[in-house]
């Protein structure tokens, strides 16, 4: 029953929260750059605007994949907030991104194609660490279920500092922030124009934005799990992590994809090291 409530709350509140987070993000970024920045509700205006625009496509099929992307992002988020199996959630999440990439491929345009390739490199970059993070949770709490992990009394972060650091590193990929915003980014001045999203416009672009909001809430949920033993600390940690990501965005240049891939995989190695030590301790302790 709890799970059901979680799902409903997620479906309704996540876009609101995600949009507000995006608004705060932009505001904060602007302040870090010495600017005033847009109104807090700007992301909602933007998406609202996108739905007012004309539908323009290169190939009709491209919009279909984006709908699937949105559907599976929502599904993976819903699975998460229903307290479901974390590993399955992660796989659904990957599936969603494959749809995004396919949408970009379908459009058959040079820049969206390069964006798609880069998006796939990104998936390849963050996938190991995400899986390892899930495994880390299992090792600490003995369960793959979000419901169990979220209600644990074990401070996961103390056991998984390396995993958390690795996860924080790849979070910049998922939030599309410097230094790893290689496939598309929130600002225009990129060598591949808008990358994956180049050929999407109007309501389809709006759907991508909404999916992004859902995704961010889900990702922050993952961050929360590291601190779940104490909800207050958990929420503070989520806020601090997010602010740190915005900060990193503002103090780094974008790197090449090679460096992104290397960093992601090194971060995963860090996580592996962390888990190996953990398993050694557990065997030793047992």
């Amino acid at each position, binding site marked *: 029953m709890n799970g059901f409530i979680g799902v409903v709350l997620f479906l309704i509140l996540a876009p609101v929260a995600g949009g507000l987070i995006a608004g705060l993000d932009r505001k904060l970024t602007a302040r870090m750059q010495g600017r005033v920045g847009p109104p807090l509700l700007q992301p909602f205006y933007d998406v609202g605007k996108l739905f007012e625009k004309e539908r323009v496509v290169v190939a009709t099929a491209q919009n279909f994949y984006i709908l699937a992307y949105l559907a599976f992002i929502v599904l993976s988020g819903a699975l998460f907030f229903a307290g479901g199996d974390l590993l399955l959630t992660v796989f659904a999440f990957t599936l969603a991104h494959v749809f995004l990439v396919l949408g970009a491929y379908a459009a058959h345009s040079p820049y969206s194609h390069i964006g798609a390739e880069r998006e796939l490199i990104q998936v390849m970059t963050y996938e190991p660490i995400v899986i390892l993070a899930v495994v880390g949770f299992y090792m600490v709490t003995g369960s793959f279920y979000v419901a169990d992990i979220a209600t644990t009394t074990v401070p996961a972060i103390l056991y998984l500092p390396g995993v958390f650091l690795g996860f924080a590193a790849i979070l910049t990929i998922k939030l599309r922030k*410097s230094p790893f*915003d290689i496939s598309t980014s929130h600002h225009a001045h*990129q060598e591949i124009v808008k990358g994956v999203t180049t050929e999407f416009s109007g309501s389809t672009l709006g759907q991508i934005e909404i999916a992004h909001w859902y995704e961010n809430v889900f990702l922050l949920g993952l961050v929360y799990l590291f601190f779940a033993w104490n909800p207050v600390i958990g929420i503070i940690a989520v806020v601090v992590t997010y602010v740190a990501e915005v900060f990193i965005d503002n103090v780094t*240049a974008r790197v090449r994809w090679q460096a992104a891939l290397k960093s992601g995989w090194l971060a995963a190695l860090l996580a592996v090291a962390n888990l190996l030590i953990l398993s050694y301790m557990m065997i030793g302790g047992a």
Partner: protein
Amino acid sequence: MPKRIVVPFGPQHPVLPEPIHLDLVLEDEKVVDVIPSIGYIHRGLEQLVQKREYPEYVYVAERICGICSFMHALCYCQGIEHIMEIEVPDRARYLRTIWSELSRLHSHLLWLGLFADSMGFENLFMRAWQLRESVLDISEDTSGGRIIQSTCKVGGVRRDIEQGKLEEIHRVMDTFEEKCRGLGNVFLNDETVKYRLQGLGVISKDEAYTLGSAGPTLRGSGVAIDHRETGYAAYGDLGFKPVVETAGDCYARCAVRVRELYSSIDLIRRAIEEMPEGGIDVKVKGAPNGEYFSRVEQPRGEVVHYLLGDGTKHLVRARIRTPTLANVPALVKMLPGAQLADVPVVVLSIDPCISCTER
């Protein structure tokens, strides 16, 4: 060669402030060949000498480019003055130097911003452009225009800067220098920036020289050529040493420009300190008859205005060779081997200014 793709890059492209087009031939993301195509800004304004009398052509020269606007005017005016053997008052020479160096500051800061942007360092872009506004404010205070100063004319300058203002600029320069050094520190010492720049787009000293490169592109490869050394305007009085780096990569070119910020600030301060009294212009009569290759060091390198007059009010020919055109061959040599992500960085590293290149 099976695994190659061709991607059109530009003319409209968010990292390019100005339209150029590149056919990029890529292997995955490695650039194996690049063929530029330009001409999107070619207006044909050299031809306007036939429609504008030579004093009015200054306004056209200023608009060859909005960034080093003043220097084009300066180069043009110095050329006409040389042909007509006009001696410009000392105060005008000093004022010209100040405006020149202000232009350089504004141009370099602008470029640093765009360069940061090409690396995806948005905040650094914002910072550089924020600092640049101080220069634009001085420019507007002294000339009435933020971008296009329009203060140079044949025979001197159009406006004077009063003493109080000069002192204020001198004061502003102190705090401004500190801020610039903070900015320069990021460009020269930040790890992510170094990662993006070092070893990228290398041009050796010999190559840079024989390809005819100019400005920071040349000096970044270790060749100490800077036309201010010849001592036009007040540079002869103030003394000047070129800024040189040796690595020849994007980082070196960036470093040259960063260090030139400091040297420009210094020149402005000394010009203010040594500012002579007197008039700012002389009356100009007659028309130029003769030819001259007028050369001035712009932010991007030496600009050449070849002026040919036949004693009428209209020049026969004004041929403008700008530094970017001279740097294009070097660019074509720099790009192959870079990654797609580096294309904007390498392209910007020569500080391409298409507007003057194509005229």
